């Protein structure tokens, strides 16, 4: 019999929506985790497209709530929940014309374009409700008429638009238009029409269409529909291997203090010395043509782009990262005036193969290179500041040993996505423009599940990988707590004795005891962990082996208050990737725990 039949809660992060990570067990939804971040975020390397994209990819807020003030109704009205939508729920709205002789439309004003000069696709599901025609329009970029009774495409206003219409059943069609957007702001509009190109007419006050599932995405396909409200609390699924299982990415709060992180030609943010900069020269790791080219000029000198005099906190660690790609020259020196050295002091990276080949000045700041598609590399380094100001230079070298030279005026290096964040390791990319920008920490938990948690004994299982081993003390991984937080059982990462290791903390009436195998964690690999608690016993299993067991009489259960809440990485979060969480209301046997945690 599978151990899963004993589990009271199982969460594998395969299915998500805004503010929620679905659990497999229980199937009632009572075990679904809540998720909050409060800001947008970027995907990491291994999303399904291999691109750095905004999460969620649907850039439209309130994608099926057209009563929201974000959607304007012009000579028309919206009635929510009017009929069954394509997904079978009663969530489709009706757009009804009024009686004026004019255009009648739904409008999403000032739609969010994060990158101009890129392909975008606008789509919406539509079904006749007295009117058989609609037109989609992106203001300034053209329109397309659709017959949603016959499923045919009508007039397309400009050749740059690629329209499509697809039947999805029950009279519904998904209408879409793709075009290249060259500005950073435009309106998305859905017009009612009484025929091809007849979008202005006298309405009858009762006719219209049903609408559902508006989506606006970067790229040339409409993508699977992703429901949105405010877009701020979408969990991120990370894939470490192609075709593998995703993990829930939980990153701590970080702030990118480099302004104009993509606009390296902006003189408010960057300074060039003996270089020319060609903006938007090539497609960046985001899939958009917005990476800049740094081109040494013909002056016989150093050739570098600088971020001068950044205000930082003295004496702490900062992680710097930037995406780079060879463009005729292969060598990039990243130089900084912080730390114990200055001058030409920093790692030298060979962009022909993504290797750190050495340093100038003797400090490579623990430089690392991560490979991205299309010969892009993300280079990151770790600095410790020794002042409240810091400068960064990006020098172009023609060879690994020549620093001063005359450029040929065309060869150079592509750069994109610079980031400097306080912390011991780099996190996902945070785009900036004129101001520094914070991505809040990811928070996921489940409250009110005392019926799913063992009160007198139990087993907690998690498949988990840390994002760093440079941790601060007491970085929680998973925890069960009473509602008043006075009683808890927590698995956390600790650095007591100066090496990272797992520890279990048991708090009773706010008094804690700690139990650890004191085995150093050697790497950032995924590991399967289970801890078992019961009266006068605590055990920890890791990858099939019992690494800790204590049967001391001081470990007492039950507590006076019920365990009711489950938290992931809630205190001193240092980041985590989580593939699986399971709760058992019983203390599994050693054999069962070994089987559960075997890789």
């Amino acid at each position, binding site marked *: 019999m599978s151990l899963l039949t004993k589990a009271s809660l199982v969460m594998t992060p395969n299915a998500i929506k805004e503010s929620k990570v679905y659990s497999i067990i229980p199937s009632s939804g009572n075990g679904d985790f809540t998720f909050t971040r*409060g800001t947008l*975020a970027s995907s990491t390397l291994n999303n399904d497209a291999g691109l750095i994209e905004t999460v969620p990819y649907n850039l439209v807020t309130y994608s099926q709530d057209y009563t929201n003030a974000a959607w304007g109704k012009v000579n028309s009205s919206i009635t929510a929940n009017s009929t069954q939508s394509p997904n079978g729920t009663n969530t489709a709205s009706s757009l009804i014309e009024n009686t004026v002789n004019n255009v009648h439309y739904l409008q999403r004003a*000032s739609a969010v374009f994060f990158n101009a000069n890129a392909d975008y696709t606008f789509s919406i599901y539509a079904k006749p409700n007295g009117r058989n025609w609609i037109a989609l329009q992106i203001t300034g970029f053209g329109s397309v008429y659709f017959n949603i009774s016959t499923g045919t495409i009508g007039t397309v206003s400009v050749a740059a638009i690629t329209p499509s219409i697809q039947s999805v059943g029950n009279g519904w069609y998904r209408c879409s238009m793709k075009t290249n957007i060259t500005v950073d702001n435009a309106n998305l509009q859905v017009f009612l029409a009484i025929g091809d190109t007849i979008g202005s007419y006298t309405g009858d006050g009762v006719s219209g269409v049903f609408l559902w599932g508006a989506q606006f995405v970067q790229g040339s396909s409409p993508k699977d529909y992703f429901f949105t409200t405010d877009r701020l609390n979408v969990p991120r699924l990370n894939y470490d291997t192609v075709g593998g299982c995703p993990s829930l990415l939980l990153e701590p709060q970080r702030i990118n203090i480099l302004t104009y992180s993509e606009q390296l030609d902006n003189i408010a943010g960057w300074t060039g*010395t003996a270089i020319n900069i060609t903006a938007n020269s090539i497609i960046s790791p985001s899939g958009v043509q917005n990476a800049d080219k740094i081109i040494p000029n013909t002056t016989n000198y150093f050739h570098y782009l600088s971020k001068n005099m950044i*205000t930082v*906190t003295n004496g702490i660690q900062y992680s710097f990262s930037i995406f780079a790609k060879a463009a005729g020259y292969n060598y990039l020196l990243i130089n900084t005036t912080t730390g114990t050295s200055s001058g030409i002091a920093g790692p030298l990276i060979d962009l022909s193969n993504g290797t750190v080949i050495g340093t100038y000045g003797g400090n490579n700041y623990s430089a690392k290179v991560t490979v991205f598609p299309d010969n892009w590399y993300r280079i990151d380094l770790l600095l410790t500041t020794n002042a*409240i100001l810091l400068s960064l230079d990006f020098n172009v070298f023609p060879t690994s040993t020549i620093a001063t030279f005359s450029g040929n005026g065309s060869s150079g290096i592509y750069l994109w996505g610079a980031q400097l964040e306080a912390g011991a390791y780099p996190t996902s990319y945070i785009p900036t423009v004129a101001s*520094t920008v914070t991505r809040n920490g990811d928070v996921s938990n489940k409250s009110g599940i005392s019926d799913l948690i063992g009160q007198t004994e139990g087993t907690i299982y998690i498949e988990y990988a840390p994002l760093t081993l440079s941790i601060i003390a007491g970085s929680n991984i998973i925890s069960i707590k009473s509602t008043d937080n006075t009683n808890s059982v927590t698995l956390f990462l600790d650095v*007591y004795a100066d090496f990272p290791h797992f520890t279990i903390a048991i708090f009773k009436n706010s008094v804690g005891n700690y139990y650890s195998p004191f085995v150093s964690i050697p790497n950032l690999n995924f590991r399967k962990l289970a801890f078992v608690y019961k009266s006068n016993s605590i055990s920890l299993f890791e990858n099939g082996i019992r690494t800790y067991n204590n049967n001391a009489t001081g470990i007492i259960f039950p507590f006076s208050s019920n365990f009711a809440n489950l938290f992931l990485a809630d205190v001193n979060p240092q980041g985590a990737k989580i593939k699986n969480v399971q709760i058992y209301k019983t203390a599994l046997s050693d054999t069962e725990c070994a089987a559960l945690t075997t890789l």
Partner: protein
Amino acid sequence: MKISKLKYADKETAMADLLLKNVYVKHTFNDEETLIYGEGIHAVVEIGLICINQPTLEIGSIYNNQPTLEIAPIFTDGYHYDVMSEQDIDFGDNEVVVNNPKHSFLGHNVITVLNE
């Protein structure tokens, strides 16, 4: 969700007020005391000093191992924080309105405009 932009005389004054208002709360774990967010707090961002000019180094000085300031930084008075919270918190005179923010939360500047 509310975003409060705060200005204090210095970091010590700021931390005292943020603790007083339960923006930060003290948390003891494994005999070590740390600060964690209070109930309803989604983010606290320590912006610190705000530089209002562009300081520069003398050209080439960093390549002589002698980085030398050409233009020294000028900081506004005060020590700055941004707080994102579910609840309204009365920060009194420490809450300021800014026209040219030096910091934002990812997506919030845009979303605010869109929802107006």
